[in-house]
């Protein structure tokens, strides 16, 4: 089965951890993830500038490793990201900002990517909506 997974909560939220464990289980079960889509505070999960204390779970690093290992389509909503200071190099240049996060394989794109993924997946599963 093909899953689109949307995440709306920040890295320290339990729902973000559950989303990652769910995504891992989807692939481990022989299913497919057609896209990860990070929206609202979920965009912080793609912010590789986040420094997590050594004895705590580093979810942004875990997401990155997961996305890279499985070469997933991983999209961060650009409008939500700009509002929260999550700017890739193109957006940082456009707005004259110094900070650059995220870097590939994360891709900043629009909400159309959420709709497109939801249309082409068998299931859309959302985490962190409130």
């Amino acid at each position, binding site marked *: 089965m093909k899953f689109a997974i949307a995440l709306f909560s920040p890295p320290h939220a339990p729902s973000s951890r559950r989303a990652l464990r769910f995504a891992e289980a989807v692939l481990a079960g022989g299913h497919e993830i057609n896209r990860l889509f990070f929206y609202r505070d979920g965009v912080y999960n793609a912010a590789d500038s986040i420094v997590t204390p050594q004895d705590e779970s580093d979810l942004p690093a875990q997401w990155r490793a997961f996305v890279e290992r499985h070469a997933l389509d991983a999209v961060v909503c650009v409008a939500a990201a700009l*509002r929260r200071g999550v700017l890739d190099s193109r957006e940082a240049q456009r707005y004259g900002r110094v900070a650059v996060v995220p870097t590939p394989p994360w891709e900043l794109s629009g909400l159309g990517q959420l709709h497109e993924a939801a*249309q082409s997946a068998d299931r859309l599963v959302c985490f962190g909506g409130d």
Partner: protein
Amino acid sequence: MTKSMLIVSRHAPWGGLSAREALDIALAGGAFELPVGLLFLDDGVFQLLPGQRPAAVEQKDLAANLQALPLFGVEDLYVCRQSLRLRGLDGQPLALSATPLEGPELADLFDRYDLVITL
């Protein structure tokens, strides 16, 4: 086959980005000519009150975005009647024409849509 999506907006307009970001999903779906519905539930019903003055809390008005919904082809708008009643808003004029639903009608609504996103 095109899937329909119901967006459930549960938060008051000025306490954070919830209302705006839920609305943005609906508008994006409309822009792609997808069958999108929007349900105002719980504190989300406060978004429908007319005559708000968001400038007083240095916020940009949501009304223009709400009024844009039909222009984007998002015409299936619903509001939870019980949420209105619990907040003393039942029978009040609303800024947007939304179909009031409650109880089993809400369950039917969720059943009718292929996808549901709650924000």
